[in-house]
Every structure is written in structure tokens, then in C-alpha cells.
């Protein structure tokens, strides 16, 4: 059975139907990609799947349980987290503190007002491990505002990872990055893939086809094609809809 499943999702804003009929399923241990033209509803789809919006119709299942319409914090606690296309960091905090605050171990101590967060070496170490994984160990004490754009992208993923998810949604990790940054992020996603189930929206076709096990194409609020990268290369829909330059 799939780890995560969305059935017949429908979402509209006022008169505008953004998601018509979305059916998706993601397998544990895989990297699933989502692609589609601008305005196809990819990010809205993510927002519905991760609890930011409630769907008007349809069902979202995680690990066999119905999480439709649950608020983000409940979904995160169940083990689904996400990174954002437009960056959402805590800009007054250091890189390390951005990670620390997201750790479940810290969240569980929320109601202990005397717990000195900086003295919790176990959590500090865990946060450093995550910074290692996303390639920012040397930047722990830097203010997150002073990071380069590419580093902020990596931290964005680091914060999502810090919640210790079983399933990680990544929204356009390479948006706005140059060739250098993109290849560094590709390496990062490759290495994360070994431990975490990932669902990724991505514009860079080359990158997505290299790294994904399965890809779903969203257009007009529907999944119009689905399959492995090889299957999709041959798919007439994908060729015709001119989604990107593929070699």
C-alpha cells in the first residue's frame, strides 16, 4: 500500500477551480516528482496535501489514516513536513536556532518553561547533524538572514528535515538558483533520498528526470500523466504539452 494517497481532491478559490480532480499516491522510500506548467495547481496541491488549505472535496490518507483537512501542526506531528518555494525562515535566528526550534525533542519540552534551550546539548548535536546533512555545518552560528540564496534554500530544507519526517514535500528547491547552486541542490536531494521518502515539485526537467523514481504531471488541476521518467519521455501528452526541454 502506498504511504501517502490523495483521492479525488477538489479545491476552488471563489469562482476559480484550481484543483479539479487530483489522484496521487506516493510509495515509501521513493522520490516522486510533480511537474506541470506555471499555474497548473502544483503548489496549491502541496498546500492541500500538507494542511495549509482544506480541500473542498476528496480525501488525503497517510499511512492508512485519514488526514483530510487536518491543520499543518497535526500533519507535521504525524511525520509529514515540507519546504517552501518562497522561503520561510526565522530571519532573526541563527542557522542553528532555525533547526533547533523545529526538532520534535524541543517541541515536547515546550511546556517546561525552565528548560534552557541552549543548554540542551543533545538537541544542539542533533541540529548539527542536520546541518551536516544539508551542507551547512560551517554556518551554524551565522544569522540566517546573512546566508547566500543557495544556502537559504538548503536551510529551508534543513528546517523541514528537522521535524524528522517520514515524508518530505519539497517545493521547487532549485527555484532561482544558477547552474552551480542547482547541481549542489541536486546532490543534496540525492543524498536525502536514501533515508527519506520525498515528493518534489520541480521546474528543472533535467534534474527531475535524473532523480525521480516516478513523476506525475499536473495540468488544468488534474493529473494528466504519470509514470517513471522513461515512460514519461515516451508519453505523447508530455511531448505535446511542451513541458520542457528534454534530452
Amino acid at each position, binding site marked *: 500500500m502506498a504511504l501517502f494517497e490523495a483521492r479525488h481532491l477538489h479545491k476552488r478559490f471563489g469562482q476559480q477551480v484550481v484543483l479539479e480532480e487530483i489522484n496521487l499516491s506516493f510509495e515509501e522510500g521513493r522520490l516522486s516528482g510533480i511537474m506541470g506548467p506555471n499555474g497548473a495547481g502544483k503548489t496549491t496541491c502541496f498546500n492541500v496535501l500538507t494542511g495549509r488549505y482544506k480541500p473542498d472535496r476528496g480525501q488525503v490518507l497517510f499511512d492508512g489514516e485519514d488526514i483530510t483537512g487536518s491543520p499543518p501542526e497535526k500533519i*507535521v506531528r504525524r511525520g509529514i513536513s515540507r519546504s517552501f518555494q518562497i522561503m520561510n525562515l526565522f530571519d*532573526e*535566528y541563527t542557522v542553528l536556532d532555525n533547526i533547533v*526550534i523545529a526538532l520534535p525533542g524541543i*517541541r515536547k519540552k515546550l511546556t517546561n*518553561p525552565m528548560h*534552557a534551550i541552549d543548554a540542551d546539548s543533545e538537541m544542539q548535536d542533533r541540529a548539527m547533524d542536520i546541518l551536516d546533512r544539508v551542507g551547512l555545518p560551517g554556518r551554524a552560528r551565522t544569522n540566517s538572514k546573512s546566508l547566500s540564496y543557495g544556502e537559504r534554500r538548503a536551510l529551508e530544507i534543513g528546517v523541514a528535515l528537522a521535524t524528522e519526517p517520514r515524508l518530505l514535500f519539497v517545493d521547487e528547491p532549485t527555484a532561482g538558483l544558477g547552474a552551480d547552486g542547482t547541481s549542489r541542490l541536486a546532490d543534496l536531494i540525492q543524498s536525502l533520498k536514501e533515508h527519506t521518502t520525498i515528493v518534489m515539485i520541480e521546474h528543472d526537467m533535467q534534474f527531475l528526470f535524473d532523480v525521480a523514481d516516478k513523476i506525475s504531471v499536473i495540468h488544468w488541476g488534474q493529473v494528466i500523466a504519470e509514470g517513471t521518467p522513461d515512460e514519461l519521455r515516451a508519453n505523447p501528452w508530455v511531448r505535446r504539452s511542451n513541458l520542457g526541454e528534454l534530452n
Partner: protein
Amino acid sequence: MDYPTKQTKAWVTPQIVVAIVLFGTMPLWIEAVGLYQYLGVEVIIWMIFALGYNLLLGYTGLPSFGHGAFFGIGAYAYGLAQFEVWPNLWFCLAAAVVVTAAFGAATALFLSHRRGIYFALMSIAFGQIFFFIASKWTDVTGGEDGLLDIQRLPVEFGAMSLSTRSNVELYYLCFALFCVLVILLWRLTNSPYGRVLRAIKQNEMRVSFIGYKVSVIKWSVFTLSTAIAGLAGGLFAMAQEGAYINIMSLQWSGTIVLMVLIGGGFVSFWGPVLGVILYFVARDVLGAYTEAWLLWFGLMFMLLVMFKPEGLAGMWRDLLGTLVTRKAEPKGNPAKVEG
């Protein structure tokens, strides 16, 4: 608000020691600098109020413009508990805290899903509701006359009883509570809870996406800050020997915002303390020269907001920063300087 790690782990920091020494000795020197003992009482009470208020404004970024109402509710609760129930200091102060917190908790139910301008407007609306109830419900609050003849009850520990009749005695009661509050708030603001508050100020949506229920946290911090306002209000009823409606007005609610901002509540734990001192000293020193002292204070506020929104605490930090860098420069390695 970045402190060296050593400080954020400590129960008592150098700044806390300085504050304790400074305010602990205040009755000894306040008259020598041309001020008077009652001013000290006012200052320390408003510092308690301001520290609690800053949990909302400076830490969580929630602009409550109706907080004076809770200060006032604390004062009435203290008076009523004394008249109607049991004239015991601890009981009456506890009543001030609990009753105010109950009003705060109920109000927070309506505010905890709001932010920014909507939060601000609703906080004004609730402040005004409480103000009008207090002014019209004459049987309970005494209306425009207020509650008169509130006693400065003695501090009782078993058989021991300490008077709070004189201003200096009352000051030391407030000072003791201030010290406890400062230490507890220092710990709280450096606990996971405090860090989440600051995270909410920076990016509320992301906080929910790392697993925190933002509305519950906002509800709790609002309630906590009203509880502290209630304590300050109870003490203020003792200081004034009465509870009056004017402290619940919009103007006084604005004054606490002014104090906290001018002091630098957004960047420093100590901002509210500095702001309260500046306000009262300005009132008394400028006030001695001109009745229009608030005009000058207002202008000062405007200049500060335009040129140094980090307030007094921000200026102090810049000053320290320059001094530290200068000291470090001859050694040729300013990069190593921290904090």
C-alpha cells in the same frame, strides 16, 4: 535579541545582578537625585507591567492596544477581594492575578486567531468594552469615583508581619516581586516556549509547519501577560490606595506601548525596563519645566521610531558594540569578538 549562550543558560545574568543592585538601592539615592520615593513605587510597578506586556509585543509581535484594561481589572480585583472577601495581602494579590488572567484568557479566545492590524483593532475593542463596563457598573467599581480606601495590606509570613504603609516599604514588596518575575521571565524567554514566541513574531506560518499549534501558544502568552498586568494592577491599587477608571483608558493602554517601544522591547529583554524609567523620569523632569512635557516626549518617540526603532536598548547595544570593536582592533582580530 541575541545573547551569549552562557547567559541564556543562566538563572542570574550580569544584567540581572545590575538591575537588582540598582533597584534594590533605589530608595537610598532616589531623593538625592531630586526625585521622590513614590515615583520609585510607580516605576517598579510599571516595570512589572511592561515586562509582562513585552512578552506579547516584543517577543510574539502581537500589538495589544488594550492592555491598560487588564492593569485596571487587577486593581479593582485587589480592592474588591480586600473589601468583600479577605483582607490578606497574598490572597488579594492572587485574586488580582487570577481574576485578570481569567478576563485575559476569555479575551484571548477571540484574539488568538488574529494577527497584525486585526489583532490590534480587536485588542482596542476589548479594552474599550472593559473600560465602559468598569465606568458604568457603579455598584461594583464605583464608576467615575473609583474604589476608595484600599489598604496597603501588610506582608504576612506566619507570625511575622511587615508593614507596607510607607512608600519605601511598599517599594520593597514590589521590588521583591520584580526580582522573582525578572528571573522567571528570563528563564521563560530562553526556554523552548520563549523561542517559539519569537519564532511566531518572525514567521507565524512556518511555526505551524514545524508542528506547533500557533493559536494555543498565542492564547497562552496573552493570558500570561494579562496575569502579570493583573499583578501590577493589584500593586498599583496599593500604591494609589484606590482603583480608578482612568488607568483602563485607551490613553494608558497607549502609554504602555510607548514605553516598551521607546525602551527597545523588540530587541532586548530589558527594553521595557528602560522605557518605563525614561517615561517617568521624563514626566517628572520635563514636567517640572513645562506642562507640555508629553509633547516633547511624543516628539522624542517619533524621532526614535524614525531613526532608531530598536529604542534605547538598541542604542546601548550599538554603543557597546563600538566600544568592544575599538578595544579589539589593536589586536587586529575583530572577527573573534562575540556578543
